[in-house]
């Protein structure tokens, strides 16, 4: 078990610390053990194990139908697992569901809202369901301001634009100040301004000690924000590592060249793509550049243009799970 020291910021978000008899440790934000979920004959999750530590900014990626939303619904208690168990901040989502749910804030993927109330009322109700009263109003105001909803705080939910509804939806998940926040594709179909505002606010929460779990279609967001990434495919986790390690181990660098002659046969094994005199070579290490240049020099093939591209998370994603056409995160 990974040992973490108590940080002052943890107290700010009301984390619960668990202790054993020999040494103190902080419970994992999320601990998933052997989870399977069947819908009739279809097996949506096939034995998923995952541990996310407190304070992490974690990405859960995978193509549509990989099982991400099923896993999130199991975390939230909206679905019951076929087998296995899940703990949130040390509390089992089945047997100790009240504490587990109190520790969790989930932003649903669908744009849902209650048409009877305004934004501030909805946030207060949501906090109230979790036992938070007027003492929580300052936090509700902070969320409203942080997500740019101040002007709309007294506007009825049904009168908000799509982007504003999305902000209100995110605010609802944060209303009770949960230590673990799950964002299920929060930026789907929203403008750049909201995305930047949202990520600035979420990063601030993460710095204060909140654990963030993110699923997104925008892989560059996951690459920029998340320290660790899990990639799912057909109900299984196929990759789980730090973003940096995944980029290093799975993604090749790309060397794009425009040549004055034919590509020498020694370099054919590196060829990834060719379009006329333009070739793209896949390199596993930077040192291979020198070898490529040397072979071209010996073959008297002149280089008219050259570009070296770093691999990104999309390359890793396509490499691991994106063999199917139209794969998405």
């Amino acid at each position, binding site marked *: 078990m990974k040992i973490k020291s108590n940080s002052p910021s943890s107290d700010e978000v009301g984390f619960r610390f668990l202790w054993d008899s020999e040494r103190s440790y902080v419970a994992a934000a999320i601990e998933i053990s052997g989870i399977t979920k069947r819908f009739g004959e279809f097996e949506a999750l096939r034995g998923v194990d995952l541990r996310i530590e407190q304070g992490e900014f974690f990405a859960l990626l995978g193509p549509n139908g990989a099982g991400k939303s099923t896993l999130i619904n199991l975390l939230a208690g909206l679905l019951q697992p076929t087998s296995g168990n899940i703990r949130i901040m040390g509390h089992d989502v089945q047997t100790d569901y009240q504490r587990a749910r109190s520790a969790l804030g989930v932003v649903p993927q669908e744009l*849902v809202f209650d048409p009877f109330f305004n934004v501030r009322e909805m946030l207060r109700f949501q906090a109230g369901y979790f036992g938070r009263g007027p003492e929580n109003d300052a936090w509700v105001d902070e969320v409203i301001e942080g997500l740019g909803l101040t002007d709309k705080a007294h506007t009825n939910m049904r009168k908000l634009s799509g982007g504003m509804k999305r902000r209100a939806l995110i605010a609802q998940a944060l209303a009770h100040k949960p230590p673990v926040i799950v964002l299920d594709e929060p930026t789907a179909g929203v403008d750049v301004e909201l995305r930047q505002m949202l990520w600035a606010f979420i990063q601030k929460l993460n710095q204060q000690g909140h654990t963030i779990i993110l699923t997104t279609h925008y892989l560059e967001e996951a690459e920029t924000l998340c320290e660790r990434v899990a990639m799912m495919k057909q109900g299984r986790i196929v990759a789980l590592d730090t973003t940096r390690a995944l980029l290093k181990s799975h993604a090749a660098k790309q060397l794009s060249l425009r040549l004055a002659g034919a590509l020498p046969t020694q370099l054919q094994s590196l060829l990834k793509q060719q379009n006329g005199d333009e070739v793209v070579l896949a390199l596993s290490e930077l040192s291979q550049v020198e070898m490529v240049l040397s072979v071209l020099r010996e073959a008297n093939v002149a280089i008219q243009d050259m570009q070296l591209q770093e691999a990104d998370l999309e390359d890793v994603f396509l490499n691991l799970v994106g063999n199917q056409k139209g794969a998405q995160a």
Partner: protein
Amino acid sequence: MKWLNPFFWLDDKVSPRWRGVYTLFKKELLRFWRVAFQTIASPILTALLYLLIFSHVLESHVKVYDQVSYTAFLVPGLMMMSLLQNAFANSSSSLIQSKVMGNIVFLLLTPINTLEFFAAFLAASMIRGLLVGLSIYLVALCFVSVPTVYPGWIIAFALLGSALLGTFGIIAGIWADKFDQMAAFQNFVIMPLTFLSGVFYSIHSLPPFWQAVSQLNPFFYMIDGFRYGFFGHGDVSPWLSLAVVGSFLLALAWLCLKMLKSGYKLRS
């Protein structure tokens, strides 16, 4: 705008342990209060139209109990009918709307337990039903004198009836997936049972076969027991009505709690 929130004096006083159920109850109450024209005023008007039309047409033709005019006889029946229909409508419409619009997820994500969920929806439904019933009584007093011989029975059957239909509404709201299923439930179950329960007549005026059929209708016992509280006369003993209504309430509450606990149609 404090009048929009009748709870402003209570908000600071509720302990965190009870705040979840209190908030849900408050939200359910405000939900119908915000559209009071539709949820309170409209059923009162409908009941008064029934009262005016039926009493005008039948007052001189129908005599049910000695020394009780037909118009006075109608008032408790119309009160109870509206009370039952509105208690049912409150919980059922709130749940089906939340399910169809998807915002039920905000409730399902919370630590509110089965009993609290049930209690909050039930209490709000009962209050709407009682509010409509009481309003009809107060407005009817402008037109006709209605005695209250046994107020205890009136209160007991008003509470039990609103609780029974509030519970029935939660069950229907959980079961129905679409608005038309809910409309079918209302039009083919609730409406016939209320209209055929003795709202407009005493079952003693029916042929023996239909008297026997009426006694299989639990709504009959709610209305008859309620009316007994006003006039001291009923078609059956109020104790029998109490036993039937109480048993039905316990059975439906048990079923409703079981559905909620298992996550039927809410958590799969």
